[in-house]
């Protein structure tokens, strides 16, 4: 048991180190000099001397491996470095953003899960009926909608045409609605498609025919089907959190939601490397942990030995 947990944690750490190394290396070879960017944004005349001094101060002059090693060790201590942009520590910025992103992402996830679960169950129960067809078309279309597109359309129709919502989101509930909808609609489409397929494949199994043959009520049969699909559904949800993270960057930028996604977009413009690295590491860690948990859960939910 302990061995298994250790193995999982080790895998997680190895993946994180490899990925962070990759992103770090990319920054090293990428065009654009953060020192120069910073100086010009401050309005300082860029001379070779000033530039070198600034580079030295930001630690950009050290050899690559030394820089990566230093960065890695400070991350382990929870220190995400100092922002190139304003000399403020990065960690509190990231954490504050993360909190706000969590509000947005978790609300969207909850909304999507509840809606798509109900739709998927309805669709499966009335397979090939009118409801099923409508749900299928809806899930297909919404799955084809990019996040940015749906949010712009929602903004246009709800805020401008119908004047139901303010264009720029405030922290309140009303401000949360449009971003949540924009994130949820494509996700609902994807969840319905995946859950529906999952339920249907479970319903084609012999035991469902066996239960039907005993006259077991549809409610009980559906309960069994859902119960047996749960493992796969957890995996599906965990994988979707990745798309959700990407989507929240877009949505936060559009609605000016001050989360970690908006922070990283601002940092990309400013070549604020410590923040970008912090973003990758934090999002990656969360995603990996969620997927590990889903993996454990789906094994727990199916007591059968693996074949």
């Amino acid at each position, binding site marked *: 048991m302990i061995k298994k947990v250790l193995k999982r944690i080790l895998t997680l750490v190895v*993946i994180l180190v*490899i*990925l962070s190394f990759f*992103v770090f290396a*990319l*920054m090293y070879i*990428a*065009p*654009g000099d953060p020192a120069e960017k910073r100086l010009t944004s401050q309005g300082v005349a860029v001379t070779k001397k000033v530039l070198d001094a600034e580079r030295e101060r930001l630690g950009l002059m050290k050899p690559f491996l030394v820089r990566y090693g230093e960065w890695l060790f400070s991350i382990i201590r929870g220190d995400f470095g100092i922002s190139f942009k304003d000399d403020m520590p990065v960690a509190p910025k990231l954490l504050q953003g993360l909190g706000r992103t969590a509000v947005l992402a978790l609300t969207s996830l909850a909304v999507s899960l509840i809606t798509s679960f109900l739709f998927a169950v309805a669709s499966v129960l009335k397979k090939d009926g009118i409801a099923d067809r409508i749900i299928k078309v809806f899930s*297909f*279309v919404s*799955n*084809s*909608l*990019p*996040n*940015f*597109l749906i949010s*712009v*359309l929602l*903004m*246009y129709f709800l805020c*401008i045409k119908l004047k139901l919502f303010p264009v720029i989101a405030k922290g309140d509930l009303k401000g949360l609605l449009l971003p949540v909808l924009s994130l949820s609609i494509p996700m609902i489409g994807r969840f319905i498609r995946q859950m529906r397929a999952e339920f249907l494949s479970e319903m084609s199994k012999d035991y469902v025919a066996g239960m039907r043959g005993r006259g077991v009520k549809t409610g009980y049969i559906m309960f069994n089907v859902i119960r047996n699909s749960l493992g796969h559904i957890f995996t599906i949800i965990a994988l979707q*959190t*990745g*798309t959700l*993270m*990407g*989507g929240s*960057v*877009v949505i936060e*930028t*559009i609605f000016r939601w001050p989360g970690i996604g908006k922070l*990283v*977009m601002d940092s*990309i*413009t400013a070549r604020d490397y410590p923040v*970008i690295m912090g*973003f*990758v590491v934090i*999002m*990656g860690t969360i*995603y*990996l942990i969620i*997927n590990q948990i889903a993996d454990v859960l789906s094994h727990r939910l199916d007591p059968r030995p693996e074949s």
Partner: protein
Amino acid sequence: MKKKKLKAKIIILSVLALLLLLMTCFAGLVAKNDPNATSAAAIRTAPCADYPFGTDNLGRCVFSRVLYGGRTTITATFFLVAVSFAAGTLIGMICGYHGGIIDGILMRIADIMLAFPQMVVAIAVAGILGGGMKGAMIALGITMWVSFARLARSHTFSLKKEAFIKAALIAGKGDIYIIIVHILPNLLAPVLTNALTQIGTTMIGLSGLSFLGLGVVPPTAEWGSMISEGRAYIQIAPWAVLYPALATLITIIIFNCLGDAVMDYREA
């Protein structure tokens, strides 16, 4: 019966997709206005005879820009899918055919690629590479090849056990000959189907990055960036947003429909 219906559906969708491709390829013939020509006299003109989709903030013809933008988006998407397809299939075939250390290493790399949220990596990478369509394509491409490689690998694995491959080996044919002549044609159908289903997703990803300003460099027309630009004055000139949005939507839906239909057809 079901197969016939699906076949008809695939044909109709293919025609639509082809039409779309032709429209964007020959954008110059369809659209008379220069997509990048600004006109101070015609800023934010509503759709009219000269400008069927109106003009944007700089007086550029939205109709021309939608067509030329389609060329950017669709070309980039096809190119990216094609490269991922080629690279992934090659890697997958090598892994599946050879096994051993090469397989172990490459598949571990694939696992790591999949272990990470794709869009998060794409945004970071595209951001670091400093925008531009090339950067966006690299950002998406580093994870895209994996699905092709896995598919090709598993098919190669099972093909290797077939009698005709064994026969070719006994006949003294070389590995490369076997891979190209015997394995590749037999795994092309499933891998190509995967490529088809990836088109919609790739388009969403690419236009998403462009929307964020991490894709195409202005003034090149691209749907995602057009929507992003037009957003600022959507109240005054909604056409500058709605037409590229509609184009994006239709294109993605057509390709997703086609992908689904081909998948269903192969399963039926």
